[in-house]
Each structure stands twice: as structure tokens, then as C-alpha cells.
């Protein structure tokens, strides 16, 4: 009898959980899944001359991926996003370490400082970099004074500027999951590693870094995926040779009014991202199950 009542209670709890998550599922369905599917469908329609979507069906839009420009843009997009991810991790891992080692009173303040940039509009923050990096900007003048760049050179409108602003805007997304992992990390393990003869850096890389592995995976995903799709940053601080896939999609959608081709590019990118996320998720799940199997 007890068992029966128990399982019944559990079942009603499960259904309660179901109802509670329903709004978020509904939100995702209405504002993410359905629009994505609509874009996917449009990618198989013919374009019409007025810039709308025609009536015919075609695979021609997807052949846009075979265009040499697009292949070059894809490679650059992956490369720039990967470099931005690596730089963000290289900055965020030590940052997470220090935040976790700080006294709890200070941690809150540091966390707030990490989050504060979000209070300012994304676009405005990118424009702020334009002010800093333009030919009369503070950073440009300093760089010129030190002699890093010549008189005619500019810090703006090149891949370096895109990378810099990408790292700047995505760093908090890397710090937050890493901090969450580092806060749970048992720092006495580092004492143990030191005790067993490891130098401070050896202890950091062979105990701390694997210890926050889940956080590193999440942080990499949080930087790499949005970077793949970003187009505002190369649009504002980048030059012609730093265009990314996002810019091509925007150009097809807004300037050329070729919505089906823009949809094919956007859908392809989205599918690639979903694939990456699925692989990472799978990896983490197998790691987690092997850890918890008792």
C-alpha cells in the first residue's frame, strides 16, 4: 500500500514538474522552434523578384554553400570564433580561479563587476570600441606613441579589432560557468598535488583544469556558438577582409533581398551549431555517467 501511494505521489510530482516547465517549452516552441522551421522551409523555396518568397521549390539556395566566397567566409568564421574562444578561456580560467579563492564577501562584488557590462546595450558597447580604436582614439594614439603601429595604420577595420571586441563581449559568458565550476572545486586537491611534488603550475593544469572540465565545456560553448553567428561586430569594427558568415547572411537578407538564400545559409549555420552542441552534450553526459556510476 505504502509503495503504491508513494509511486502515485511521485507520478503527480512528475506531472507537476511537467506543467511547470510547460511555459518555457511553449516559449521555445513559439519563438525558436517554429521560426527556425519556417526559415528552413523558406530555404527550399524560390526567390521572387520583389524580394519575397516565391511559390516554387528548389535546392539551388543550398548550393550557395559551395560558392568559394562562402567557403572562405565559413573557414574564417570558424577560425575567428575558435581563436576568440581560446582567448576567452585563457583569460576566464585564471579569473574564475581568483574569484573562487577570494573571500565570499568579495566574490559577490567581483561577480557584479563581471555582469555590469550587460547593463549597457550590446550595440553601444561595440560603438564604444569604435571610439577607442578610431584613428584619433585613445588606444590608437597610445599604440602610435609606443610604436606598435605606424602613422598611417589603424587599429580599426581589421580582423584584430573583430577578435578584440568578440573577446570583450563574450568574456562574461565564459567567466560565469567557469566561476560556477571553480566555486565547487575542492582547493585542498591542490594542496595534495603540491604535497606529492607538483609545482604550482603543474598542480593548476593537472588538477584544477580537469576539475573544472564541465565548466570549461560550457564556457567554450557559450563563446564559440554566439561567435559563429555574430555579424554586428565585424559589421561595425571590421573591414572587408574580416567579414564573417553572419555578414553574408545579413547582406543576402537585407541588401539583396534574397530571403531563400539567406535562409539556406542561416539554416546551415544553425544545423552546424546544433550538431556541435549535441556532440558536446553527449561527451559531457558520458563523462558524468562514468563519474557517478557507483
Amino acid at each position: 500500500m505504502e509503495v503504491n501511494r508513494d509511486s502515485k505521489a511521485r507520478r503527480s510530482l512528475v506531472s507537476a514538474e511537467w506543467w511547470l516547465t510547460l511555459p518555457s517549452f511553449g516559449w521555445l516552441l513559439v519563438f525558436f522552434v517554429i521560426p527556425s522551421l519556417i526559415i528552413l522551409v523558406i530555404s527550399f523555396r524560390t526567390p521572387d523578384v520583389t524580394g519575397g518568397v516565391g511559390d516554387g521549390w528548389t535546392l539551388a539556395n543550398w548550393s550557395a554553400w559551395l560558392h568559394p566566397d562562402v567557403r572562405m567566409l565559413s573557414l574564417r568564421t570558424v577560425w575567428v570564433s575558435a581563436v576568440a574562444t581560446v582567448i576567452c578561456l585563457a583569460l576566464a580560467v585564471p579569473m574564475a580561479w581568483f574569484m573562487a579563492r577570494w573571500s565570499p564577501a568579495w566574490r559577490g562584488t567581483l561577480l557584479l563587476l563581471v555582469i555590469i557590462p550587460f547593463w549597457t546595450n550590446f550595440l553601444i558597447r561595440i560603438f564604444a570600441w569604435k571610439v577607442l580604436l578610431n584613428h584619433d582614439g585613445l588606444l590608437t594614439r597610445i599604440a602610435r606613441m609606443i610604436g606598435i603601429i605606424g602613422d598611417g595604420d589603424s587599429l580599426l577595420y581589421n580582423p584584430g579589432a573583430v577578435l578584440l571586441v568578440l573577446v570583450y563581449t563574450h568574456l562574461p559568458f565564459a567567466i560565469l560557468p567557469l566561476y560556477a565550476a571553480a566555486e565547487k572545486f575542492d582547493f585542498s586537491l591542490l594542496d595534495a598535488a603540491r604535497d606529492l611534488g607538483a609545482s604550482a603550475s603543474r598542480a593548476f593544469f593537472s588538477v584544477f583544469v580537469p576539475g573544472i572540465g564541465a565548466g570549461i565545456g560550457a564556457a567554450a560553448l557559450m563563446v564559440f556558438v554566439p561567435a559563429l553567428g555574430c555579424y554586428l561586430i565585424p559589421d561595425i569594427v571590421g573591414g572587408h577582409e574580416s567579414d564573417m558568415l553572419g555578414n553574408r547572411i545579413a547582406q543576402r537578407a537585407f541588401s539583396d533581398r534574397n530571403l531563400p538564400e539567406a535562409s539556406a545559409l542561416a539554416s546551415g549555420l544553425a544545423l552546424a551549431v546544433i550538431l556541435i552542441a549535441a556532440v558536446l552534450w553527449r561527451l559531457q553526459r558520458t563523462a558524468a555517467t562514468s563519474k557517478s556510476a557507483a
Partner: protein
Amino acid sequence: MEHFLEFDDVTRSFGAVHAVDHVSISIRQGEVFGLLGPSGCGKTTLLRLAAGFDQPTSGRILLNGRDITALPPNKRPVNTVFQNYALFPHLSVWENIAFGLRVAGRSKAEIKTEVSRMLGLIQLEAHADKKPAQISGGQKQRVAIARALINKPEVLLLDEPLAALDLKLRQRMLLELNKIHEEVGTTFVFVTHDQGEAMSLSNRIAVMNHGRVEQLGTPHEIYTAPSTSFVASFIGDTNFIPGKIAAAGPNDRATVEASGFPAFDAVPQKQFPAGAAVLISVRPEKISLSAERPPDVGLVVSRCQVEDVIYLGSESRYAARVGDHRIWAARLHDRDHSSDSIRKGQDAWLHFSPDDALVLEAVTDKA
């Protein structure tokens, strides 16, 4: 070697608090040395100073005559078994044990033989590929010991080695630790708040309180001749009877008085002037109760009323009232059932030998 690991006038202060206060201890090579004391007495700080996780505010730490005070933990020939074991969760049992040798850059073949040898010592060959989360507390403990011992440390430091285990396991690990020590012969220094652990494992014990060493000696010395009232009360149970020195006699002897008891002659722990207030400590097992008045030849005998009788299986404890004092007496139940006749509430005779009475300085508690 007499002076193998030496703490030479070591002090560690945190602000105005002296966690370790001018401690000098010499630990012999190959011995099992216990640091015993209540929490906050400075024993763990002392261990961390020996491991190199912390630096003394003043004083020196010497190992085999070499000053190691300034050496970082990875440069000391000393390894630690942590209280929570601190096993690396992402590494298997095998990899955990191999960690020290890998860091030292030993050859693969050497690491393999050494790790197998260690797995044999702790009898965990079958669990080599498991992660720490998949093995039991006692097994983790053994892995932590193997991981430390594989580096052939000159001193093995153990921080509360048995505290995290349940009672049954603790007794088994106690024997196992003794066995491991016999096999490897390394100097063991361990910290504990459990007097039973300290007594059964150690060759010598330092009893610490408020950052200072109260007494250093063999378990037997510390139990039978505690030099302070703190040690007497911390190690085992005892009765404290406040009294005073009536007269200082020859040969370090003195006549001691306490209300409710006849004056008796004893050898105090130190020389007291006549009139000094003292604490007389008598262990419960040294106090006997009888219904008939015993012949008081050389015994301190007093009339008492039995207030409580507690039956504990192998022994019984009696609380007896003598004047203002409540005195505990203990009696083992062997084949002799003579004291079974003593019942709660009855009047009886209490007696002990003056040789079993320790006369200690009466200190007002520092805490």
C-alpha cells in the same frame, strides 16, 4: 635517530592569536608520533607547518638536521594523508597512486611496478581502475596512504587519519595502519583529537592545548603520570578533588588535605609550598567501594553515599558522594562479584592508595 623531525621554538600567529605558541618537539626516526588535543589546540597547524602549506611566524623546522622551514611543499621529502583524503576525482585509483611518480618524471616501467607494489600493500588490486567516487571510505583512506607512501617520504603526515570512518572500520584501519608502519618503517606523525587513537597508535604523544605542548611522553607515561590537570582530564576519565598542601615533607613528599578525606602523604608532580592550593586527580578505576570498612593500612579511606550506579556491560560505574565531592569509581566485572552488593542510595566505604593520587597544580582554566 633522536632528532629526526624537529620543531625548534615554532610559533604561528594569526593576528593576536597564537595557533602554535613556542613549540619545540623532537620526533625520532621510525616512530609513530601522535599530536593529540582538542580542536583549535594548534595540532593541525603544526602538521601544516611540517608539510609546508603554512609558514611559521618564528622558529625553525628541521628534518634530519636540515632546515626545511622555507621549502615549499613540493620540495619537502614529506607526504601527507589528508583528513578528507583529497583524492583526485578525475583520476582512477591507479592514477591517483601514480601521481607523485609521474610528477617526478619516473619511467613508465618503474611507475607500473611501484604502483602494483603499493596496490598490493593496501590490497586494492581489484579496484585499480575505479574512480574515487566508486570506492568506500576505508578504501579511499588506503589509496590516500598508498599515494603518499609511493614517494618514499622521510616522514608521513596523517591528518585525523581515522576521523571520517565509522567505529568498526576505524578499529580495523587502526590495525592496518600499524601493519603498514611495521612494513615500511617510515616515520609517522599524525594528528588526532581521539585519545584512544593516539594511545593505540603512537610510540609517543604530545598533548597540546592552546597552541602549547602540555606534555610529551609515551602513552603509558601520559596516562599514569599526567603532568597537568588538562592532560589528566583529556586522557581518560579522572576525579579532581580540590585540596591543599598541609605540610611539605622531606624527599619531595608532602602531606595533602582535602575536605571529606583524611590527610595523606603523596609525591606531588612539582614542589609546592605549604598552603598551596592543589588538584588531586584519582582515576575511577583506582577507586574501590566496599560495604565493609576496609583495613586502612596505607589507604585513604572515606565514608560515602552511593548516588548512582551505571551498568556498562564489562564494567560498572559508581557515583559516590563524599562531602561536597561527587567521586566516580569504576569496577570491571570479572569473576569476582563482590561489589555487586553495592546498591544505589546505600552508605559505603571508598578507598584508594595514595600512590594512585596525582597532586597537580590547581589552575583556573585558561579557556
